[in-house]
C-alpha cells in the first residue's frame, strides 16, 4: 500500500513537472502581455517533433537534435508574436486570446504537413533508472523534474530582480506607463513569446522519449498546463509549478482509482480545489 502511494506520488510528480514547465510558459506570456496563449501546447509539440525529426535523420547527434528542437520552438514563438499578436496589439485581450487559438490550428496543420501524422520517438537523454524510496525511477524523469525546478527558479528570480523581468511585468500592468518609462512593450512581448516557446519546447523534448509525440498531442498538454497555471494562481511562476505538480499527482491517483474515468476524477478535484480557494491555491 505504502509502495503504491509512493509510486503514484513519484509518477505524478514526474508528469506534473511537464505540466509545470507548460504553466511556466503561460505565466511568462500572461505576466508580460496579459494574454492567455492557447498555442502553448503547440510549442511543446513543435519542440518535441522537430528534435525527434532531427534525431530520426540519423545524421545529428542527440545534443544537436535537442538544440534544433529548442531553436525551432523559440523561432516559432517569435514568429507567432510577430505575425499574430503584434497586429492585434490594440485589440482587447479576448480577441488576442482567440488569435492564439487560430495560431494553434495553423501550427497543428503545419506540423501535420511537415512531419506527418505518425507518432515520433526520441532516445532518452540518459538511459537507465535509479531506486528512489523503493520505486524505480527512470533518469529521464529526473531530468524533467530538474528542468521544471530550474525553470521555475530562473523565472522567479528573473521576474523579480532583473531589469528586463521588471520591465516585462510593467508591460502587463500598464503598457502606456511602461512606454513612458522607456520600456518597449512590443519587444518585451516578443521576448516573452520566445522565452515561453523555449520553455514549452524544452518540455516537449523531455517528454517525447517517455510518451512519444505527434502533431495533435499539444492541445491536451496545453490545456493541462493552463489548468496548472490557473489552479496555482495565474501570474506567479512558483504557484504554477505547484499547480502542475498537484495536477500530476491528482491525475495519477484518479487513474489508479478508476482508469476509465481518470480525467473526470482529476478535474472534479480541480473544480473542488478552485471552489475552496477561488483566487488560486497560493494566492494571498
Amino acid at each position, binding site marked *: 500500500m505504502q509502495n503504491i502511494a509512493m509510486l503514484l506520488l513519484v509518477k505524478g510528480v514526474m508528469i506534473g513537472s511537464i505540466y509545470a514547465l507548460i504553466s511556466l510558459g503561460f505565466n511568462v506570456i500572461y505576466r508580460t502581455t496579459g494574454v492567455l496563449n492557447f498555442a502553448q501546447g503547440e510549442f511543446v509539440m513543435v519542440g518535441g517533433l522537430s528534435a525527434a525529426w532531427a534525431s530520426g535523420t540519423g545524421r545529428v547527434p542527440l545534443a544537436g537534435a535537442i538544440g534544433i528542437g529548442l531553436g525551432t520552438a523559440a523561432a516559432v514563438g517569435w514568429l507567432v508574436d510577430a505575425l499574430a499578436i503584434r497586429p492585434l496589439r490594440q485589440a482587447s485581450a479576448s480577441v488576442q486570446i482567440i488569435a492564439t*487559438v*487560430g*495560431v494553434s490550428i495553423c501550427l497543428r496543420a503545419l506540423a501535420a504537413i511537415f512531419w506527418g501524422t505518425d507518432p515520433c520517438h526520441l532516445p532518452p537523454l540518459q538511459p537507465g533508472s535509479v531506486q528512489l524510496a523503493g520505486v524505480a525511477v527512470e533518469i529521464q524523469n529526473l531530468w524533467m523534474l530538474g528542468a521544471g525546478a530550474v525553470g521555475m527558479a530562473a523565472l522567479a528570480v528573473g521576474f523579480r530582480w532583473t531589469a528586463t523581468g521588471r520591465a516585462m511585468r510593467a508591460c502587463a500592468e500598464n503598457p502606456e506607463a511602461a512606454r513612458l518609462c522607456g520600456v518597449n512593450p512590443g519587444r518585451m512581448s516578443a521576448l516573452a513569446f520566445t522565452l515561453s516557446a523555449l520553455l514549452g519546447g524544452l518540455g516537449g523534448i523531455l517528454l517525447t522519449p517517455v510518451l512519444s509525440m505527434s502533431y495533435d498531442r499539444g492541445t491536451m498538454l496545453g490545456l493541462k498546463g493552463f489548468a496548472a497555471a490557473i489552479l496555482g494562481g495565474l501570474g506567479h511562476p512558483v504557484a504554477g509549478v505547484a499547480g502542475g505538480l498537484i495536477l500530476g499527482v491528482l491525475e495519477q491517483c484518479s487513474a489508479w482509482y478508476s482508469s476509465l474515468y481518470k*480525467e*473526470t476524477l482529476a478535474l472534479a478535484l480541480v*473544480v473542488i480545489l478552485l*471552489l475552496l480557494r*477561488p483566487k488560486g491555491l497560493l494566492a494571498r
Partner: protein
Amino acid sequence: MNVPQPIPNRRLFRGPALLLVAILAFPLAARGDYAYLLPLGQLCAIYGIIVTGLTLLMGFTGQISLGHAGFYGFGAYVGAVAATAGRLPVAAALGVAVAAGALLALAAGFAVLRLHGHHLALATLCLGVILGEFINKAQITGGAGGMFDLPEITLGGLVKGSAAGKFYLVWAVAWLVVLWAVQLTASPVGRALKAIQGDEGAAAAAGIPVFWIKLKVFVISGALAALAGTLYAFVYTPSYLGPEEFSLMFSVTLVTMAVIGGMGNVWGGLAGAAVMTSLHELITLGGEKLGIVQVARWEQLIFGLLLALILIFCPEGLMPALGGWAQRARAWWGRRWKMRTRLEP
C-alpha cells in the same frame, strides 16, 4: 445627461424580418448541384443557437464558459437515451433533454458562478471535459462507438427525410431564439446584463441581483446548448450520434465563433456560427475552382490563417464591422444625395 432611449420596434425587428426572408429563400436557391448546402445550413442554425446563448453569457453578462460543448453533448445524449432506452416519443425526449440541460446548468452554475475570470474559464473547462468523458466512455451512450438509428422528428410526416424540410425546422427554432434574444437585450434585463459585465459591484449597488441574473443567463445558455444538441441528434444526423462532435476543442471553437461574430451584438452568434461553419466548405470550393490539388492537406492551415486575418481586420468581430461599413456606405450615399439636390435648381 444622455439617457438611453428605447429602440423603436420598427428598427428592432427589421433584422429578424430580413433573416426570415433569407431563411425562406435559401432552400429555393440551394437546388440541383448546390443541394449539399442544405445540411451545411442546418449545421449553421444548430451552432447559431448555441453561440447566441454563449453571446448572451459572454458578450453581455461578461461570464466566460469553456464548457458549452459539454452541455451540447449532454442535451444530444439525454434526448437520444430518452428516445431509445426510455422509449419516449421524440417530442417528449426533446423536452426532457432541454429540461435536463437546464437543470445541469443550474447545478453547475450555482457552484462555479462564484468564480471569476480565468478561474471561471478553468472550472467550466473541467465541466466540459467531464461531460465529454462520460459521453465517450459510459455504457448507456454507446461509448466511442456512438448510437445508431435514432427516431427522427417528422412533424407528422411534414419534414421526413427532406433536407429542405429539416432546414426550415432548425432555422425556425434558430429564428425564434434570435427573436427572443433581440427583444431581451433591448429590454431592461439586457441593460442589467451589460451593467454586470461592466462592474459587478456597481451593478449590485444599483439593486441588480447579480448572482441570480448570472445564474439565469447561464441556465438559459445551457438549455439552448442542450436544445441545439437535440436538434443535432434528432434532425441533423438521426442515423448516427457519435462523441467526436462534443470534444473539448469544440468548446473552444464555440467561443471562437462568438468572438468572430462580435460579442457585443446579439446577431454575432449567428454570424460567427455561419462564417466558421461555411469557411471549410468555401475553402474546398475555392480550391477546386482555382484547380489547386490537395486542398484537404492545406485546409486546416488556410482555416487558421483566415481566422487570424478576420481578427486582424475586424478585431471587434464581424457584426460590428458590418455595421460600421453600412454606416459609412449610408453616409457616402447621403453626401451624394445632398450634392445632387444642391445641384438641381
